[in-house]
């Protein structure tokens, strides 16, 4: 059986316990719980009497801390420095300032009340002038600048769209009344993905002159889809789909690449078509096809 007053055999643990008890007691006293602090101290002192000496030493040191040194009166130098930065006012001046502030506040309230009354009983009365002021003119100027910027962006987009070359063969095939229907897919058959045409406006202009074929292609195009009223020469028909290169552009804004034929030449070629009895071809798969020419006498491909 152990005696409760026997000190703990471990001095480090005993010291830590004593410090904890001392802190608990001091905290309880500071919180105003004097009775619980005394109970805690009594229990702890029965187990370890060294708690009492430790508590006495700590209280002595803290008591010395409470003996505050007397300070010199610093009010005069402080007030002098404050007065240099922010002058003090006499009582009369302070009252005058207060009265002025009250009067200004009352005036502002009366003005607001008057404006509210006028707007209620005469809503059409011009209370505030509508003349442009510096701020409003600044707003107008910035609005005009924004509109001009939008216009410039639109023209830039238009010029981009004019450079886009539409798939001419697809358009001509549609205009010729042969809409492309998707063929049923079969394994290994890629014809559905092959374009029926193998010529482009670039191929037309770069082909040799003596074949005459390249110059017939625009003729066939012209015969298949003559320029409509109101449309520019070389522009897409209204029902044509926009190019995949510019999916967001409208059909009317798309144009072909510059037509190599002049108006006079086009008229001459149309007259030749009529003279030769030219009819619109059902399909344009051979760029060297010549109307009225025997297929056996067709010139060899380059």
């Amino acid at each position, binding site marked *: 059986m152990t005696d409760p007053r026997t000190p703990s055999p471990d001095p480090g643990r005993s010291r830590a316990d004593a410090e904890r008890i*001392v802190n608990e007691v001091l905290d309880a006293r500071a919180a105003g719980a004097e009775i619980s602090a005394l109970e805690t101290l009594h229990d702890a002192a029965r187990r370890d009497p060294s708690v009492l000496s430790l508590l006495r030493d700590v209280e002595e040191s803290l008591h*010395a801390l409470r003996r505050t040194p007397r300070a*010199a009166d*610093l009010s005069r130098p402080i007030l002098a420095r404050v007065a240099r930065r922010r002058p003090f006012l006499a009582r009369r001046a302070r009252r005058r300032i207060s009265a002025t502030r009250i009067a200004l506040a009352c005036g502002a309230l009366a003005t607001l009340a008057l404006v509210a009354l006028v707007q209620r009983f005469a809503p059409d009365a011009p209370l505030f002038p509508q003349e442009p002021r510096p701020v409003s003119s600044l707003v107008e100027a910035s609005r005009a600048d924004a509109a001009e910027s939008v216009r410039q962006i639109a023209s830039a987009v238009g010029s981009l769209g004019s450079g886009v070359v539409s798939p001419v063969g697809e358009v001509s095939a549609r205009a010729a009344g042969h809409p492309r229907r998707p063929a049923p897919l079969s394994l290994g058959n890629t014809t559905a993905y092959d374009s029926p045409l193998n010529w482009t406006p670039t191929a037309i202009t770069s082909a040799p002159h003596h074949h005459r074929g390249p110059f017939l292609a625009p003729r066939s195009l012209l015969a298949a889809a003559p320029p409509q009223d109101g449309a520019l020469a070389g522009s897409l028909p209204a029902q044509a789909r926009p190019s995949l290169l510019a999916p967001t552009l409208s059909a009317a804004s798309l144009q072909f690449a510059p037509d190599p034929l002049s108006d006079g030449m086009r008229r001459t070629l149309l007259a030749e078509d009529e003279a030769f009895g030219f009819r619109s071809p059902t399909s344009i798969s051979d760029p060297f096809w010549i109307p009225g020419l025997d297929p056996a006498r067709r010139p060899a491909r380059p």
Partner: protein
Amino acid sequence: MSRSAEHTLVRRAAAGDRAAANQLIRLHQASLYAYLVRMCGRPDTAEDVVQEAFVRVLTNLDRFDPRFRFSTWLFTIARRVFLNMCEKRRPASDSDRVDAWQGSGDSPAQRAQDRDANRADRDELQAALDHLPEDQREIVILFHQQDWPIAIIAAHMGMPEGTIKSHLHRGRIRLRDLIVKAREQRARAAEPAATPGIPQEVWS
């Protein structure tokens, strides 16, 4: 002083009332000086900080938030001024100057008596405070000298309340240990001088 009376005083001082400003200074200068002189250990530095803190506070009274106590605001500004001053010149303990200020309001005889009675204790205390870490020192001073609650100290120092408590517990015990150690050293140093028959120069 109640908070409403304090706020009335602050409002009057903010409106330019010199008497109200003077009253605010007289109400708080002693506690602020005591806090600062224990923090830095130099009465001249503490005096400079007190003046600067009051000047800043009284010229910016319109920024005072009435939700807080005036003393809390004043101590916060004084702490900032003190830390800024510490950046410029690191204060060293000067307990003689502390003693010189202690009895400034009494008669010379009483001042001398005070000095003789408490000089050793004050030296020990200031030396022990100087050996505490700055946070622990400030927390111990605010709690045991200024009687601030833990919550206000936590707000003042920007720390959680648990951290403040642990600093306080460690600071108290360390302060006591430092003081006891200093007393023991002083007792050991005094022993040879009291031994008869041995010349003083042997121990010096």
